[in-house]
C-alpha cells in the first residue's frame, strides 16, 4: 500500500482508514467464531462433563477424563474405529488406483475425451442423499437391479447390505463410485501441469513408458497426489450421510463408522459428554493424519 497516498489530514478518517482491514476480515472472523469456535469449545467442555438426557436437569458434573478413558474400553467404539480405518484404507486406496488410471487415460488424445470426462464426473454431481437412497434400491435383494441381472446371467444374488460380512464392501463400492472421478480430476490437473521437457528428454534417452511413469510422472506428481490423498482421507474419515442412508451402521454395527457412532450416542442416546469425547478422538486422529501429509507436502514445496 502506498502510505503517502493513503495519508489524510482528518485524524478520524485516518483512524478509519487504519481500521479498514478489520472491516474486511472482521465479519469472516465473527462468523467463524460463532459457527466454528463456539461449538468446538462447547463440545470440548462437554467432553469433560456428564451430560445425559436423564440427568442434565439435575446438573452437568465435571468427570475429568472419564469419558475419554471409557471410550477405549468401549467395544462399540473400538469396533467403529476398526470399521472406519478399514473403510478409509480400502476406499481411498481403490479410488487412488482407479483415479490414476482414469487420469492417465484422459491425459491422452482420445476420441470423445470430453464426453468421457463428463460421464465420469456425473457421480460427483449427485448429492449424497440421492446416492444413498439410489444405491439402497440398487442393492435391494429382491427388488434391486444388480441382483436382477445377477440372476439373469445365472449367478447367485448377493445380500449387499443385509449381510454383516458384505455390507462394508458394499459401502466402499458406493464411495469408490462416487469419488473416484474427483481423484481422477485432481490427478489429471496435476498431469496436465507437468513440464514437457523432462518427458522429451526421457523419450530421447529411450525410456520405456513404464520407466517414464515410475521415474518421472510419479515423482513429479507427488505433490498433487498428496493433496488428493489428504483431501480424500479427511473426507472419507468423517463420512456419515451415505453410510447412514445405506445401512444406518448395520447390520449388527458392521458398517458403523466413528461418525455414526458419535451420532448414535449424541442424538439417539443423548449422552452428549460421551459423544463429544468420541468426536474429539476423531478430530485428533484426523489432525495427526492431516499433519503428516501436510508436512510431506510442505517438504516437497521447499
Amino acid at each position: 500500500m502506498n502510505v503517502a497516498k493513503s495519508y489524510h489530514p482528518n485524524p478520524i478518517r485516518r483512524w478509519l482508514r487504519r481500521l479498514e482491514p478489520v472491516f474486511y476480515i472482521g465479519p469472516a472472523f465473527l462468523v467463524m467464531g460463532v459457527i466454528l469456535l463456539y461449538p468446538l469449545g462447547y463440545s470440548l467442555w462437554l467432553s469433560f462433563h456428564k451430560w445425559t438426557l436423564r440427568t442434565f436437569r439435575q446438573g452437568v458434573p465435571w468427570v475429568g477424563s472419564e469419558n475419554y478413558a471409557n471410550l477405549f474400553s468401549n467395544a462399540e467404539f473400538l469396533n467403529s474405529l476398526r470399521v472406519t480405518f478399514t473403510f478409509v484404507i480400502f476406499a481411498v486406496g481403490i479410488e487412488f488406483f482407479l483415479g490414476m488410471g482414469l487420469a492417465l487415460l484422459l491425459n491422452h488424445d482420445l476420441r470423445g475425451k470430453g464426453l468421457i470426462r463428463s460421464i465420469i464426473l456425473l457421480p460427483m454431481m449427485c448429492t449424497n442423499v440421492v446416492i444413498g437412497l439410489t444405491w439402497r434400491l440398487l442393492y435391494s435383494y429382491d427388488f434391486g437391479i444388480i441382483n436382477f441381472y445377477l440372476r439373469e446371467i445365472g449367478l447367485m444374488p448377493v445380500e449387499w447390505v443385509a449381510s454383516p460380512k458384505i455390507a462394508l464392501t458394499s459401502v466402499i463400492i458406493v464411495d469408490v463410485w462416487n469419488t473416484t472421478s474427483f481423484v481422477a480430476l485432481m490427478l489429471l490437473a496435476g498431469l496436465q501441469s507437468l513440464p514437457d521437457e523432462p518427458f522429451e528428454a526421457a523419450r530421447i534417452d529411450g525410456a520405456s513408458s513404464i520407466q517414464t511413469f515410475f521415474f518421472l510422472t510419479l515423482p513429479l506428481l507427488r505433490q498433487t497426489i498428496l493433496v488428493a490423498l489428504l483431501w480424500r482421507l479427511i473426507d472419507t474419515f468423517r463420512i456419515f450421510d451415505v453410510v447412514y442412508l445405506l445401512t444406518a451402521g448395520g447390520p449388527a454395527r458392521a458398517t458403523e463408522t466413528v461418525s455414526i457412532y458419535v451420532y448414535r450416542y449424541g442424538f439417539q442416546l443423548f449422552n452428549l459428554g460421551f459423544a463429544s469425547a468420541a468426536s474429539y478422538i476423531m478430530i485428533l486422529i484426523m489432525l495427526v493424519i492431516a499433519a503428516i501429509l501436510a508436512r510431506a507436502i510442505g517438504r516437497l514445496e521447499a
Partner: protein
Amino acid sequence: MNKNRLFAFMAILVIASMLFACAPQPTEAPVEATEAPAAETEAPAATEAPVATEEAMAGTYPEIVVACWSGPEHDNLVKVAAEYEKITGNKVIVEEVAREAYYDKLTTTFVGGGSDYDSAYVMSDWIPGWVEAEALKDLTSFIEDPNVVMEGFDPAVFGKAVDFFSFDGKLYVYPSEGDTAWLWYRKDLFEEKGLKVPETWDEYLEAALALNNPPDIYGTVIGAKQDEAWWDFMYYVYGMGGDLLDANYNPIINDEKGVAALSFYTDLLQKHKVVSPDVTTFGYNEILTSLQEGKAAMGIQWMAATQTLTDCSQSPKVCKDGAPLLGYALPPGIKKDDGSIERHTGGSQWGWAIPTGSQNQEAAYKFIEWLTSKEGAKMWALNGGIPGNIDALKDAEVVAQIPQFAMLAEVMPYRSIFPALTVSPEMLPVVNEGIVAAVSGLKDPQTAADDIAAKLVEILKSGGYLQ
C-alpha cells in the same frame, strides 16, 4: 471519497444483515419454510392442511405446527386437521418427518426448548425421559383451567392408556393409536394349498415352509432392521409367552421363553430360509412393500397398514377382481392342554403431546383436545386411524365400518408394550442390536439374549430401577 462511501455502505450492510440473521426468528418462520415444498410437490415433506372449501371461519387461536412421522398416521392427520380448520377456523400445519430420524429430531427440538413444533405425535416409551428433561408441557394445567378445557371433558374416556402418560399425578399426553399387529396372510395361497390360518407358532412355521417358493415368494416376512428390530420381534416373544422385563424390572429376555422366541425368529432365516435373505434391512416399510408386492405369503404387520394392504388402488398386486387377497387374523398363540389358544401380543401406545418450547401451547392444546374428543377421534378412525377415545372406538358407525376394532378390543387385555421408563431410549438400541446379531448369525440366540440382558441390567441400574 466515493470508494470510502461505498466501503462504509457495504460494511453497514454486512453488519446489519448479520444482526438480522442472528436475531430470534418469529414462530411463523418454520411455517413459511414448510409451506413452500407443499406447493411444489404432490407428496409434501410438510403439508398444510387443505383449506376448507366452504367459507373460511376466522380462528380464535394462532396457527400451529404439528409434527408427525411418515406413514398412514401423517396422511390421516392431514385430512383430520383440515376438518378441524373447517370447523374452528384455526389453522394447523402438519409437518412430516422421516421415521428413522423422528425420535432424534423431536428430542433435539424439545429438549433444546425449540419452538418449531406446537404439538407432536409421540410414543409412550419416549415420554418419561422427556418429562424428566422438562421438555413436555403437562396437560393437567389446561384440564384444570375452566377457561380452556372443553365442557364435560373427562380423561377417563381414554381408559387405562392414560397410565402410560401420567407422572407425579400429571397427564402429559392425550392417547391415540393404541395399536397392535395382525397376522396377514394370502387367502388365495392358503386356499390353494389347503392350509388353515395358523393359530399356533408350529402351524405358522408349517405354513411358511409349505408356501415358501423363493425368489418368487417367501413363506413369511420378518423385520430385523438395526433401529426397528424389536417392533417386529416383540410379537414373537410376547406371543410365545416371553417378556423383556419382569414386574421388578429384571431382564428376562434370556429366559427359556425369550431364547425360544429368538431362536424361532432367527431360524426363519438361518435354518428354514422362509424369509428374504435381506431381512436385516427390513422394518415397517419393507415388510409393507413385501406384502404389497406379493413377495411374502404371510407376515405379522402393524394394523396401521390395514388401509394400505386392503385398498386395491394402493396394493394392486395383491388384489383380484377388485377384492384384496390379503386377509388378517390374530397372531399365533400357545396351544394349551385343553386345546384352547393362549394369546399374548405386543403393540405400541401413541398420543399427542405439547413441548414446553411451543409458543402456542393453548392453541395446540385445543387442537389435540378436539383431535382426541369423540368427534375428532371418530374422524381419525374413519380415515384409517385408531382412536384412543373409548366412546369413538365403540361408536356404531366406526364399529360398522372398521371391523378390526372388534379384534383390537379382544387383544387389548393381553397386549404388552415396551416398558415406559426413563431409560427406555437407552434400552431399545441394546435390544435391537441383540436381535440383529442373532438374526444375522453373528451370535447364537442364547448368547445374544444373554448379552441383551447383561446390558439392560447396567442401564436399569444407572436409572435406579435395579440395585
